[in-house]
């Protein structure tokens, strides 16, 4: 065995260091969000977060209740998921099983194109085009509400659902389908009773990942939901999500103020929610890959 040259060793170590940065960054994200959120638990106390109002700037008494922000995010996320799931999975089934190869070659880049449109551009589109439509259709005083927000978010989540579900559907072994067809099932029966159920864990993972993206989406949501922080589950109400709160208010808060630390608390909640959603999704993905 020849002893490796020192240069080789140095390169190996450099690459090892590069590989470790990902771990470092994740650790730093948790540490720095935690570090800036902890003072809030000490000074006004965590119980303040349970209040039903988010009134960060006030002459009388500031309140930092997360409830309106959490219900805002929840409402928008659930509605967007309900919109995006049938459309996304339908499109994925079409792409994977029905479209001709030529058709696929054109359709897939278009879906990827949708994933590429920056969220601020979609938000702008939502503001100028979608909001007036929603306003007219539902006869509302303003189009800036949870409904517009979730429609826009559903659109943004479609590429995630489509590409991962399509992958899952395509990776169902050909033998399953042949066996089903050989038993006399039609193509459609095979599709819905054999192929799609076999790909189910991948499809579930796709939906979870899409939900993670929806919860974390900031700009588009901030531009079209109206940003009124109140506890509501009415789709035609204005809502304010956790992400929008951070983005809208962080610019104006003095560093180290209670409000500043409260916004980091919102960030921690957001991080934990997306982290959990992604963990479940990864587990489901591993399920179908094995």
């Amino acid at each position, binding site marked *: 065995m020849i002893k490796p040259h020192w240069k080789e060793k140095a390169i190996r170590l450099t690459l090892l*260091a590069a*590989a470790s940065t990902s771990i470092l960054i994740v650790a730093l994200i948790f540490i720095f969000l935690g570090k800036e959120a902890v003072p809030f638990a000490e000074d006004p106390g965590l119980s303040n977060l349970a209040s039903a109002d988010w009134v960060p700037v006030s002459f009388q008494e500031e309140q930092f209740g997360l409830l309106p922000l959490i219900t805002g995010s929840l409402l928008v996320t659930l509605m967007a998921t309900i919109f995006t799931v049938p*459309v996304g999975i*339908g499109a994925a089934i079409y*792409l994977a099983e029905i479209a001709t190869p030529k058709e696929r070659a054109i*359709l897939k*880049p278009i879906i990827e*194109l949708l994933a590429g449109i*920056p969220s601020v551009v979609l938000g702008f*589109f939502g503001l100028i085009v979608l909001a007036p439509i929603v306003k007219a259709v539902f006869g509302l005083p303003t189009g800036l509400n949870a409904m517009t927000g979730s429609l826009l978010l559903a659109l943004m989540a479609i590429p995630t659902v489509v590409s991962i579900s399509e992958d899952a559907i395509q990776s169902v072994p050909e033998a399953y389908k042949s066996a089903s067809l050989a038993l006399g099932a039609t193509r459609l029966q095979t599709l819905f009773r054999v192929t799609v159920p076999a790909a189910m864990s991948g499809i579930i993972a796709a939906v979870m990942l899409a939900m993670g993206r929806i919860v974390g989406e900031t700009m588009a949501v901030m531009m079209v939901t109206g940003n009124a922080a109140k506890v509501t589950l009415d789709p035609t109400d204005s809502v304010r999500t956790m992400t929008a709160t951070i983005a809208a208010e962080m610019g104006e808060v003095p560093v180290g103020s209670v409000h500043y630390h409260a916004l980091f608390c919102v960030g921690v909640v957001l991080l934990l929610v997306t982290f959990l959603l992604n963990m479940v999704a990864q587990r489901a993905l591993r399920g179908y890959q094995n």
Partner: protein
Amino acid sequence: MSTRKAETKQPTETKATRRYFDEVVYWLLRAVMYFVVAIVGFIVLKIVWEGVPAISWSFLSEMPRKGGAEGGILPPIVGTLCLVTGTIIVSLPLGVGTAIYLNEYARQGPFTRLVRSAITTLAGVPSIVFGLFGLGLFVYFFGFGQSIIAGSLTLACMILPTIIVSSEEALKTVPQSLRDGSLALGATKWQTIWKNVLPYSIPGIMTGAILGIGRAAGETAPILLTVAASYYLTLPSSIFDQVMALPYHLYYLATQHPEAAKVQPLQYGTALVLLVIVLGFYMVAILIRNRFRKQCRW
């Protein structure tokens, strides 16, 4: 089974209705697919249609005037280019290094598992959380202030997973025999990677890098907290300067500007420039990917 019973009674008619039903379902799925395509087409065409009249050489090369209500968008364009350059300078070596380590050096074990789960975690972190992280670490803790360097580092963390994953995919497609041949001729491990593995994976790595750049150029939330000035007319002279950026400029014009309705042509123009830059990067990435697929047959 009910269907079979029905079939023995009236075989031809059931078969026909079933085929008819199948066709209906296929058309439904097709309608869903083309509905999505139509929306994408509508968004892109609408922005192009309304944006093109606003584009002129002076729009691209002049300073904004009157708080962005008139004039051009030169500072945001320059700012975005600076940010993107900084981002790629940081994230490309890190990402490719990680991919090389994972694919060429590391034995599968607890460490690689940890790195991989860190990468998937990173990929799922919302962009605004990256903004908070950048604000806490780069802006305040390192004291960079709101600057190009703080923003670039934040964006680099955000696109790192994209670059790592695509680089690793690219390295995986290089056949093992190329490595074996080089090693058998007496080359060291690094010489093998440098001369025999990396050159063949460059298109794949470039695809990932360009996709990452596209994402970095379009993101608003992280730079909102770490770089962006809504109105700042000095072009940057060092990496510690604040800059305007295209996505933030669009956000500002669309929602914060006192006369938002009046400046709509400028909004569409900015949206179009941003869209062209971002989608331009994506197109190049797709072209490289397709070309490479055709060329390389091992």
